[in-house]
């Protein structure tokens, strides 16, 4: 129990710290692929996936950890990931993003977190279990990509590493625009940890390394998987309302609590912590976003981290298909929230202009 609390909180705190200081926001990253034609954050995610993939399959090869890809229910994975993608735009951050922004003092993220926690618990052990089960019945096949092709996982990892090297080199070769930064007021380690702007690729390397570390730490406590957010978040609520330690209290629960703690330390240390209250509109959309996140992530068996970062690295269909559909979900929501109002406003202006000139 002590080990579980300590290593879970530690791993989570490292992750929360890195995410906060690196401004590692995948929701924003997916959205900007569409709105700004900017793939920087997606490329950063690919780096983190590749690093984790190499690290974890090396650990599996040496017998240090175990992994079983299991099966994938295609319909629920696709529907769930798409709904999740819409939810994270409404909530203003993905599952992990919501946890770490809660640590920065954003009350809107606390509200999103409440909705997310509630529906993910409802989908797993509550009123929505029949709905969850009914969608998970369809189109179930083998989940491991290498098993489908009947070959080793390593050619796929090699391919991913080559793609990552290609996009990283291409990105770094682009002409650089000097981005103005805040004047430095601190020195040494204090500056590096709490003030300096982190390059997204550096943040991605750290996230990849923490994702590798999560596997042995988690398995040592009997939980055979890596980073995960949705099930642990549901488990936290399930434990709080049932008091059942053996069933619901596990390494993952301390991991998500650690994210909150690490992000709080990072934000407090860099003078970025303050309780911030959203307006009514933002509060409502955060809650709806959280509700959709919980439903979507439970259907898809993972969020941006569980599916987007971990199951992709494990070379499963579930990871890559969910990643694709959650991106499509964020684009759909971005269209309705950011693009369409602007087009409409533009049209109204044109109409107003015509009426005044006519």
């Amino acid at each position, binding site marked *: 129990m002590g080990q579980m609390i300590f290593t879970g909180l530690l791993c989570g705190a490292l992750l929360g710290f890195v995410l906060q200081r690196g*401004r590692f926001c995948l929701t*924003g990253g997916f959205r900007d692929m569409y709105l700004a034609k900017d793939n920087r954050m997606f490329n950063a995610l690919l780096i983190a996936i590749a690093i984790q993939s190499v690290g974890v399959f090396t650990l599996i090869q040496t017998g240090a950890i175990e992994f079983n890809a299991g099966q994938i229910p295609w319909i629920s994975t696709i529907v769930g990931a798409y709904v999740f993608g819409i939810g994270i735009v409404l909530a203003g951050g993905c599952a992990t993003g919501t946890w770490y922004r809660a640590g920065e003092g954003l009350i809107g993220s606390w509200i999103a977190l409440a909705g997310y926690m509630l529906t993910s618990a409802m989908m797993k052990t509550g009123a929505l279990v029949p709905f969850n089960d009914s969608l998970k019945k369809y189109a179930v096949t083998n989940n491991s990509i290498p098993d489908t092709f009947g070959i080793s996982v390593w050619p796929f990892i090699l391919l991913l590493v080559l793609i990552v090297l290609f996009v990283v080199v291409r990105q770094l070769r682009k002409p650089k625009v000097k981005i103005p930064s805040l004047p430095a007021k601190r020195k040494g380690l204090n500056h590096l940890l709490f003030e300096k702007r982190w390059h997204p690729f550096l943040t991605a390397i750290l996230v990849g390394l923490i994702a590798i570390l999560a596997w042995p730490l988690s398995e040592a406590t009997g939980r055979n998987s890596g980073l995960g957010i949705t099930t642990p978040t549901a488990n936290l609520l399930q434990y709080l309302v049932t008091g059942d330690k053996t069933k619901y209290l596990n390494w993952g629960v301390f991991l998500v609590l650690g994210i909150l703690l690490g992000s709080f330390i990072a934000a407090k240390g860099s003078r970025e912590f303050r309780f911030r209250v959203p307006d009514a509109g933002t509060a409502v959309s955060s809650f709806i976003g959280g509700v959709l996140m919980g439903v979507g992530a439970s259907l898809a068996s993972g969020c941006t981290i569980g599916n987007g970062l971990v199951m992709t690295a494990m070379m499963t269909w579930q990871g890559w298909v969910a990643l694709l559909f959650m991106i499509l979900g964020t684009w759909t929501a971005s269209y309705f929230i950011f693009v369409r109002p602007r087009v409409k406003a533009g049209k109204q202006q044109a109409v107003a202009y015509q009426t005044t000139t006519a």
Partner: protein
Amino acid sequence: MKHKLPVLGMVCPFPLIEAQKAMESLNSGDELVIDFDCTQATESIPRWAAEAGHSITNYEQLGDASWTITIQKK
């Protein structure tokens, strides 16, 4: 001329979107003063301004999770 953009309390990406919108209506040489409290905008607003070719005449942290940036339209 100096214009002030009220985006305190807005979450990402709205401060940036509001800044882009406001910038369209300004004349070249006008300055836009943006006070914001959304952490992610410390990265996204200066990046957008630099990439769009505007210059940043002032950028500082005012207090806990509170920043101000002044962008001059190119």
